[in-house]
């Protein structure tokens, strides 16, 4: 417990690291985070497919200084993941977030999953589209987690998915594959 409080106090302390220059929102460890994440993502078939698609479509990938989030900026062809400043982002977290962000970008070229450009399609259909997009991205993240675990037996990626609240999806995905194979 005292170790935990020591870690907490270290994180709360002012001036604990060098602040990136003003005017940039990019994380100081962006290159290292992306390098580790893309290398690991490529070990999964689904992840490799997303990376190949991103390369073919000249998508940029960035790590922003922010609390955990990820997404796609359609006007800029930029996918982003985020990590708090001054912290190393666990690679397994970066991989899962990057897979989600890349799939969100890919949805723009997937019939039925494009981002609605107007709310005039009606509230119900507008919400339905965003729910479908969300579920689709989550399905890809689950596939990546499963394939990576099968390929590397890296338990941390399952732990991270559980921390994100999606372990039941992972179990359901695994069960689906098992019943489909039998």
């Amino acid at each position, binding site marked *: *417990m*005292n170790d*935990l*409080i020591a*870690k*907490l*106090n270290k*994180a*709360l*302390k*002012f*001036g*604990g*690291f060098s*602040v990136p220059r003003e*005017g*940039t*929102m*990019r994380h100081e460890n962006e290159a290292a985070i992306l390098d580790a994440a893309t290398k690991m993502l490529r070990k999964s078939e689904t992840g490799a497919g997303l990376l190949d698609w991103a390369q073919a479509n000249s998508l*940029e990938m*960035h790590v*922003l*200084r*922010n*609390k*955990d*989030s990820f*997404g*796609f*900026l*359609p*006007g*800029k062809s*930029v996918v*982003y993941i985020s*990590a*708090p*400043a*001054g*912290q*190393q982002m666990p690679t397994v977290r970066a991989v899962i977030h990057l897979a989600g962000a890349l799939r*969100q970008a890919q949805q723009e070229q997937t019939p039925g999953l494009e*981002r609605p450009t107007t709310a005039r399609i009606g509230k119900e259909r507008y919400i339905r589209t*965003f729910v479908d*997009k*969300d579920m689709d991205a989550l399905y890809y993240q689950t596939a990546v987690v499963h394939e990576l675990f099968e390929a590397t037996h890296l338990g941390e990626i399952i732990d991270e998915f559980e921390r994100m609240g999606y372990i039941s999806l992972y179990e359901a995905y695994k069960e689906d594959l098992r019943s489909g194979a039998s």
Partner: protein
Amino acid sequence: MMILNWQKLDRKKTGEIINRVSQTPDGPLFSTTTSEATIAPLPFYRGFMLVRLTNYATLPSFTLDFLSDGSAFYLLDGAPDPLQKVAMRGGLILSDHNVADYVEFFFKHVTTEEGDIYLIHNPEDMPFLDSLSLDQQIQIKRAHTDVAVAYDRDNDYFLVQSDMYFAGTLLKATMTVQPDGQIEVTDHAMLIGSNGGQGHNNGYYA
């Protein structure tokens, strides 16, 4: 719990803020057509406000928070340093009445490698309460005390006592808050033990 009074800015002001803050080597992350700027005063800052930029073109919507005096914009990026910068510029005015709000704000915008930190104002509002056993839920509600604040004149700092959640652990913690906004946990005890009973302390809550 602090309730923020958000005000939406018009498109012109939103555009000005976007131009000011979104200069990156990759170009602006926000556009005036798909983004919204809102501001909220904070009770412990003088001359600085919380500015929130939201880009609704992304899924989920992309949000960045800043502290600003209208000319400087300090991105709240999960580290404590932006809050330090504002304090160094004389923007932080702490008192008995606002120091608990400051601690809550600080924890909301500073993240640790072990995860987020939550002050617990009301156990009923804890998002993870349902994941605990009924016995643990009862123990937490029994052990819970409201946030308490005191000013230590001899040492010139505030003492804030509160229940908090950090790294999967429920704690009763005593924090010192310096006039410059620096926070340190100086004493703690488990709010409940692993068996659901009240936890042991490290000397303070005897």
